[in-house]
């Protein structure tokens, strides 16, 4: 356990990591980058806070985004009440200037509970932060996005904020300083009154089209309803969902709720794979804000090629089965590696 000077915490920005498994989420790393930007204006320190029991990859991840302080509050369960019980006294005692959470379901709950226990003001869905002299002014959206509000706290030492995903991006930093880890262990005597009966991983096929991260969409180039079997397989392998263009749903090859485009669902997933879709304007408008677009088409001059980040010219019926094989092989290799690592550790 490393001692840190506690008086300096008042000049700190803390970011609570979503890191139950010893690996921080991309959204938490993005928040650390934003915290570093804000801290630079006022010569403050940034400290990451984790409830994880093990450090796992945290050190390397923090180093990569230029953060060299980590506060660990190891938690024996994944209950938010006990997480708040661990964090609240530390926040009250050290009074960081700003405490940031990713606006996940658990992040929001811990933030609100800590706010309740420490009387620090909470700003949900913050979109922008700025300094005005020594005050932190936070912008948040109001009334379902119809207004935005700038707020600040006159007399509280700490401001707590939750930030939605994809507002900031993680920025790599050239700071190779060693990460100093402080571990605080405390007994929490929060009574457990909620019993978890079961936990199931969200299957993309059961989510709405605009909620999934990966969409494998098919157009008339797929050829038939049977042709969509391969697309379904690829979508399953990538934990995504199948999408379709208007003519495909009109043909009845897939259900209408898979329709992507102006008259269907407007989507912006992390990855959009367009198979046999030429790219009519109505379709492009519905998917062009996707982070990465990959197109597979026999026609190299199809309009989709103008939008795609990567365009494969070829027959999708040959490429997709091979892609599934490569993905499966990769997954097997990763699983074997993980098993080998576990055996080596234990």
């Amino acid at each position, binding site marked *: 356990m490393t001692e840190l000077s506690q008086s300096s915490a008042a000049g700190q920005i803390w970011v609570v990591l979503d890191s139950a498994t010893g690996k921080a989420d991309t959204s938490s790393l993005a928040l650390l980058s934003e915290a570093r930007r804000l801290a630079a204006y006022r010569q403050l320190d940034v400290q990451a806070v984790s409830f994880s029991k093990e450090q796992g990859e945290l050190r390397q991840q923090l180093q990569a985004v230029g953060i060299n302080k980590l506060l660990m509050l190891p938690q024996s369960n994944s209950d938010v009440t006990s997480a708040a019980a661990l964090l609240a006294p530390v926040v009250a005692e050290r009074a960081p200037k700003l405490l940031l959470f990713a606006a996940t379901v658990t992040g929001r709950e811990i933030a*609100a509970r800590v706010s309740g226990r420490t009387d620090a003001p909470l700003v949900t869905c913050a979109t922008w932060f700025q300094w005005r002299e020594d005050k932190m002014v936070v912008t948040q959206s109001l009334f379902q996005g119809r207004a935005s509000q700038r707020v600040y706290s006159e007399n509280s030492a700490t401001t707590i904020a939750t930030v939605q995903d994809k507002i900031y991006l993680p920025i790599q930093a050239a700071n190779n300083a060693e990460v100093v880890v402080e571990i605080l262990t405390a007994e929490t005597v929060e009574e457990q009154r909620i019993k978890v009966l079961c936990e199931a991983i969200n299957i993309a096929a059961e989510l709405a089209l605009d909620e999934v991260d990966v969409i494998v969409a098919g157009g008339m180039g797929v050829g038939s309803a049977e042709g969509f079997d391969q697309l379904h397989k690829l979508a399953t392998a990538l934990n995504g969902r199948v999408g379709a263009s208007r003519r495909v749903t009109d043909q009845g090859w897939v259900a209408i709720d898979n329709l992507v485009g102006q008259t269907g669902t407007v989507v912006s997933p992390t990855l959009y794979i367009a198979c046999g879709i030429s790219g009519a304007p109505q379709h492009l408008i519905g998917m062009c804000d996707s982070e990465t677009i990959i197109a597979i088409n026999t026609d190299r001059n199809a309009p989709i090629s103008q939008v795609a980040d990567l365009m494969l010219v070829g027959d999708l019926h040959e490429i997709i089965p091979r892609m599934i094989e490569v993905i499966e092989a990769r997954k097997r290799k990763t699983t074997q590696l993980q098993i080998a690592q576990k055996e080596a550790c234990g």
Partner: protein
Amino acid sequence: MKILVYVRQIFGAGFNPVDPVNKCINDQGAWFQHHPKDERAVEQALRLKDAVPGSELTVVGIGPERVEADLRGYLSVGADKAIRIWDDALEDMQLEDCMCATLLEALLRSGEITCDWLLCGDDEMSTVAIHLAELSKRPLATAVSGVASLDGDGEGLLRVKRRLEKSTLTLALSAPAIVAVERGDALRYPKHSDRLRASQQDIGVVALESLGLAAQGLRDKRRLQVDAITSPKPTRKIFPAQGSGSSRVVDLYLGGVGGGGNKQIVEDSVDNMAELVVEKIDRATHGGLSS
């Protein structure tokens, strides 16, 4: 089984509440509607009520007289009672979530109403349910997508589904507890006769005094000062960022306003293309295939 649902009113679709000159909220001439997530919470509560005979469903709102229209809407679809918390002293106060939670907690404590289950709508901005759970020490489930009674009469146990980012949890929750509903079926439509009945029903108004609260005490709970309220910047950019998918669509159909981007066209053997595309997928999903 006694169910209480906390409901809110929001500005009606299409109404712009921002006064651009004074940078504050201007609700003159405003119209209001149900909060869409509260509608889902009421529907879940109605289903619980239907499943367990003899249940009582009360809706509670915080706000001036206009809130009664909202409450009557819920009375017409099957709520038994409605309560409005309001006091003239609250007129000029912008209520933060923690202040609303204080009012609701005082209502539960005052004995004006008893409830086994308190439901409310949940979204990424709302923290009333969480603050209320902290104040009342009741167990809480947020981001709920489904509620069902576990023991038939629904007195003691509920089965609740929570949708987190990556997984769905099924919980057993024991009364009294708070359930914040995010997803679920849309609210049912009322019959015309029920609308007429609801329009005549009494709505009890609870003032601060009967809750044992003082206006100043509540005012002191406000921790944030508002600097300015403005209209949000438009999210749809007329000239999208260089290299983004939207810029290329603009390029394609409007003729060269956006940027060329980093597009790559590959024509190769199937094996090579498959390797290349899987590598690209791995990068695009931030190592999703190798973790």
